[in-house]
């Protein structure tokens, strides 16, 4: 799915979190939003998901204006840094949640739901853990469950908010490799918020560098790294020219 953002602005009280951001994301792209904390990158992602609403500007999914649509109408696959798993449900029910709340006319049968959940568990390499509760899993396992839960409803876009931020370095690398592989296989349009430039350059097709609510530079990892950006970008990436 392609995403078109036109002059998006969001203020929290007097504080401008996102200032006049316009961006086009092509179908199948993996784009990283890279910037220091407080730069507005997460707010931008949340506006795209429908978890925040902009003061100005519009958002189009595949040409359809979704600016006024709520999060449950947009159904973007959202992965949180905190996993946001439903702790009172088993792993199986966590992944099945989006399928169970679907409108009756579109709801899958229990057998189909079971089939899909078990196949997703295989994809995230956690087969056999479907009856566990989230507290019984490690951080890396929980985040993979969160991935599977987001993917279960077959979203047209995957939004990842610092998905590996709470994990240790080794698990981070493994999951990063897994995500790259997954994206290469499925070409699901994905937006990825991070403050870790290695992560951004490693995973993304294009990197959007954000600071103080505005886009500082957009380009492929090579373009951005080559040092063509402004003073902020060079300083942030510690590029010496």
């Amino acid at each position, binding site marked *: 799915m392609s995403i078109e953002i036109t002059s998006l602005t969001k203020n929290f009280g007097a504080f401008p979190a996102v200032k006049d951001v316009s961006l086009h994301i092509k179908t199948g792209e993996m784009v990283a939003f890279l910037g220091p904390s407080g730069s507005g990158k997460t707010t931008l992602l949340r506006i795209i998901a*429908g978890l925040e609403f902009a003061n100005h500007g519009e958002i189009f999914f595949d040409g359809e204006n979704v600016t006024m649509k709520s999060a*449950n109408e*947009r159904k973007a696959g*959202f992965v949180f840094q905190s996993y946001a*798993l439903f702790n009172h449900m088993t792993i199986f029910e966590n992944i099945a*949640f989006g399928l169970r*709340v679907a409108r009756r006319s579109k709801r899958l049968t229990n057998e189909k739901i079971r089939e899909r959940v078990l196949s997703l568990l295989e994809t995230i390499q956690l087969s056999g853990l479907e009856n566990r509760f989230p507290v019984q899993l490690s951080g890396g396992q929980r985040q993979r469950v969160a991935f599977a839960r987001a993917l279960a409803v077959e979203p047209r876009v995957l939004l990842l908010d610092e998905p590996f931020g709470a994990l240790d370095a080794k698990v981070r690398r493994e999951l990063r490799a897994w995500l790259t592989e997954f994206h290469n296989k499925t070409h699901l349009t994905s937006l990825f918020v991070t403050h870790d430039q290695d992560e951004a350059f490693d995973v993304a097709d294009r990197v959007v560098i954000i600071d103080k609510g505005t886009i500082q530079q957009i380009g492929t990892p090579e373009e951005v790294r080559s040092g063509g950006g402004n003073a902020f970008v060079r300083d942030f990436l510690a590029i010496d020219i």
Partner: protein
Amino acid sequence: MSKKRHILPGFHLSLGWTVTWLSLIVLLPVIALAGKTASGGWEHFWETVTDPEVVATYRVTFGISLIAAIINGVFGFLAAWIFARYEFPGRRLLEAATDLPFALPTAVAGIALTALYSPNEWIGKYLEPLGIKIAFTPAGVLIAMTFIGFPFVVRAVQPVITELSSDVEEAAACLGASRWQTLRHVVLPPLLPALLAGIIMSYGRAVGEYGSIVFISGNIPFRTEITPLMIVTKLEQYDYTGAAAIGFTMLAASLVIVVIGNKLQSWGNRFRKSA
């Protein structure tokens, strides 16, 4: 042979102290009550606790308390939700008012409620022409029981709602869940143990309540008499073993309620156990 070691020191000392304290404060009076009851003999005990007038009070005390506890469950939850989730002018004042039944001497509450609902008083005089009687009816008992039990639910549930992070609600929304589905499947289940705890405490409070009820209920035998009143009546007639017998029966019933409550809570908390 290695002794089991504890990281925190003083386990045995604090356990010993706890057991001693519990024995003195809780167990001893219970044993004394049992002893007093036993001294009257089985026949007297059975006669007293199955007396039709006493049996009628069980219905009022345990039955109406249950209704009051459920009402408090619903409205206490609502109040806790509003206090935890919204910031509005006067919130602190409302929260303080919620705790009032904790602090208010129950007799004062009883007089206040009677002053409101008696046929010629503030609210009573408007309800009377409509054929609704509150004072000196089971409805009055219900109101008093609801009044004194209300803060228990609010205080049990509010901290858990505050603790609940909003990201799970957002996750549910992104998965296509409606507000209602999110509330029903994501928000409420983790709150259930706290809500049950609040309802049980509110129930226990209502079962044991005396002061605020006896004024508004009018103490009509077989209709609005509560079990604690029976105890007081027996005491006034110097029938100490009779009073103890009824007290013992209430104690046993309360114990059953507490055990059921604990079972329900651990069931509601089953997902918190890590293996």
